[in-house]
């Protein structure tokens, strides 16, 4: 590790009554990868936003190369060489990838040259093995691809201090591995890297030092060598009881078929074929994992099942009934429950409060509604029940859910979905971006549901998760189902091969 390049001393930042950071001190050395860990809402992003000039701290000081600096605007931070990949992407959807990268660069040429920009992106993405199409518009990209654009942006600009807020949340393990290799290269070149993450293994493998935030304060700082899962877990979630989920046992899955997809085809947003001839069945009480690199049709698959995207051909059969032509509402009533990738803007209404979000799906059912009038007292009752049952932390059920932490938002979303007593749950990356405590709780809810007979489709990039939770796993690559396996009859290796496009013809019907 090199010399001390940046020091934050006693940073305090409050939002109204919320204390997001309290007396946080952090040292950063050139050449190191520094990991920030902590629960959702611990104040990690806030601390980094203070560093990049987006928030102004209420107290404390920042020293850059020994000199006290006051970072008043992002511009200043960028000029000082502090670059950040934000948790919520800062991309312009209507611009192309190349333009987005160029927007962030130091290049000040007046005229744009699309071709040249695209070539630069091509070079850059090849160099760091982050493949994206420079000419594509950002709104056409999957979340994973967008994340890659964000990273390319930063690399292209060439910052001294790189901050990545949960970069691996949307990457596959392989991609994450690649990315850390890149980051290591940058660190070796004398740069300092801060990575926020919820994944302990990754942090222990790749970071030099680890700082854990809790409740806005520094809970623990350690060298990576000194870190153990126990120590980190304790620092992150405290003394709270924390059970590791045990891998699912084989068997016990009913033969009753809940969902049947027959030769399903669908298009993506660009109008290209995204799903090709998908045929599969999901049974009662089963957790069916969908593995694959993001952007290979997962989103489209989930949306076609939920009815948000039309099928071009083929059929979706739910409990023996063809629902291909049914509306979204019709499918909801038939027991399809959907936990979307974009939980805050699709699964929830961020500006509405807790209890208004509780009734989102069933606002017009007998449960909450009489003669067209919504009974908010019932909603309040349900809200309180959710809070109690799932230990959801919030500022009160009358505050907008946008103020809740990501983990608690997801808990609310899942609690609501489970409360509709669905026969099928389609969960897309349900624990992405969640801290280990929250992720564990979410997984436990899904497991519990499947034990109660609900069929679950779990779309995930983490093979570990799939192997622990699922009964069977199907692999999507380029919109095709490469094969379906019982998790007990396969291994990481085989699934990994299938993910990269090797077809395997072994039938795996339970």
């Amino acid at each position, binding site marked *: 590790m090199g010399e001390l390049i940046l020091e934050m001393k006693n940073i305090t930042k409050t939002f109204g009554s919320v204390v997001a950071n309290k007396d946080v001190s952090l040292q950063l050395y050139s050449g190191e990868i520094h990991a920030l860990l902590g629960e959702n809402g611990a104040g990690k992003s806030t601390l980094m936003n203070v560093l*990049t000039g987006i928030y102004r701290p209420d107290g404390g000081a920042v020293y850059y190369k020994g000199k006290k600096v006051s970072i008043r*605007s992002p511009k200043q931070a*960028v000029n000082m060489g502090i670059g950040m990949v934000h948790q919520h992407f*800062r991309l312009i*959807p*209507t611009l192309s990838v190349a333009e987005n990268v160029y927007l*962030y660069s130091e290049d000040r040429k007046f005229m744009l040259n699309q071709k040249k920009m695209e070539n630069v992106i091509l070079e850059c993405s090849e160099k760091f093995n982050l493949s994206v199409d420079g000419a594509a518009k950002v709104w056409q990209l999957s979340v994973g691809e967008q994340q890659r654009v964000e990273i390319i942006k930063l690399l292209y600009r060439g910052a001294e201090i790189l901050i990545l807020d949960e970069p691996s949340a949307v990457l596959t393990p392989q991609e994450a591995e690649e990315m850390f290799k890149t980051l290591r290269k940058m660190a070796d070149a004398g740069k300092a890297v801060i990575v926020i993450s919820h994944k302990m293994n990754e942090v222990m493998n790749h970071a030099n030092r680890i700082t854990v935030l809790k409740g806005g304060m520094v809970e623990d700082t350690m060298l990576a060598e000194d870190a153990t899962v126990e120590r980190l877990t304790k620092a992150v979630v405290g003394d709270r009881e924390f059970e590791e989920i045990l891998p699912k046992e084989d068997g016990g899955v009913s033969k009753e078929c809940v969902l049947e997809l027959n030769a399903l085809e669908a298009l993506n947003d660009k109008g290209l074929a995204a799903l090709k001839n998908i045929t599969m069945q999901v049974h009662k009480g089963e957790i069916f994992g969908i593995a694959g690199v993001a952007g290979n049709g997962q989103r489209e698959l989930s949306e076609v099942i939920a009815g948000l995207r039309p099928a071009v051909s083929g059929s979706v059969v739910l409990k023996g009934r063809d629902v291909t032509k049914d509306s979204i509402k019709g499918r909801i009533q038939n027991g399809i429950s959907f936990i979307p990738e974009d939980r805050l803007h699709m699964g929830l209404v961020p500006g509405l409060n807790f209890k208004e979000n509780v009734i989102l799906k069933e606002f017009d059912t007998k449960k909450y509604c009489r003669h067209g009038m919504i009974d908010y007292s019932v909603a309040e009752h349900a809200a309180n029940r959710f809070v109690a049952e799932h230990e959801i932390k919030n500022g009160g059920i009358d505050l907008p859910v946008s103020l809740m932490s990501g983990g608690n938002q997801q808990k609310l979303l899942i609690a609501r979905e489970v409360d509709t007593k669905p026969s099928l749950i389609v969960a897309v990356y349900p624990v992405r971006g969640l801290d280990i405590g929250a992720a564990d709780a979410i997984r436990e809810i899904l497991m519990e549901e499947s034990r109660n007979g609900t069929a679950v489709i779990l779309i995930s990039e983490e093979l570990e998760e799939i192997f622990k939770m699922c009964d069977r796993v199907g692999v999507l690559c380029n919109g095709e189902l490469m094969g379906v396996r019982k998790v007990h009859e396969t291994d990481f290796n085989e699934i990994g091969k299938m993910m990269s496009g090797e077809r395997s013809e072994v039938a795996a019907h339970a």
Partner: protein
Amino acid sequence: MSSALIVSIISTAILYAVSVLYAAIGEIFAEKAGVMNLGLEGVMLMGAVSGYLVAVHMKNLALALFVVIAVGAVLGLVFAFVTVTLQADQTVAGMAMLTFGTGLSGFIGKEVCGVNANLAFESIAIPGLSKIPIIGPSVFNQNLLVYAMYIIIPVSMIYIYKTRPGMILRALGENPATLDSAGYNVFALRYGYVIFGSAMTAVSGACVSLAYTNFWSDNMTSGKGWIAVALVVFASWNPLLAVFGALLFGAISVIGVDIQMVFSALPSEFYSALPYVATIVALIFTTGNFRKKRSTAPAALCIPYNREER
């Protein structure tokens, strides 16, 4: 149709189009930056009156144009202060601008009402080009403000779609937070474009009082500002489409009068309604998402930017 009639229709349509295009293109820039001004009419009137006042008193067109631009810029500054810095609601701010501008222009214009300035942007035939049949007399025998518009259109297209500042502008109306974290000054940029848009709008006013006609009267733009606002959306925030829209509107309303005199049995109101109906139909066909097109409205339009808001 005789060629003289075609020439006349084209040149009248061009003259009309230019008088709204300054405002529309200015507003395209402002809206691409995320700030909408519904009160273009008020700014236009202020431009029209200030230009005319200078023309009457100083007898100097260049100075008049300069004052018009300056007045537009000052109004833009006020509008930017209210909507960007104070983050006020842009709809009401626009309507306030409309009322304020209409009132103030009427008041300061009282003394030149009915006074002939005898000083206007006259048509100048471009040697050579104006000899081309039909195109020549209609397109190349116009006043300076029209010729300036011939340059502004391609320049604005290139600026928006081919230059770096143009790209920044496109980003500004989509997601200012992104620009902010990339080190651009969102507030300064918005101020700049709002002021620019407002100055252009004021020139539109000058087109009416100093080129299209040559006089001042209260509220003389009679709804042009609203047409400009509509044009921006009609054009999907694209200057070239705005040109198309303005010409279409101008041409149809001229042709409407022509056929009004020929075909009987329909009330004149029918022909007067034609340009509006045509706008509706064209809007549906050009912007309707029959083929799943994405909406082109800047995503952050009308949303004040505040760094700590989330």
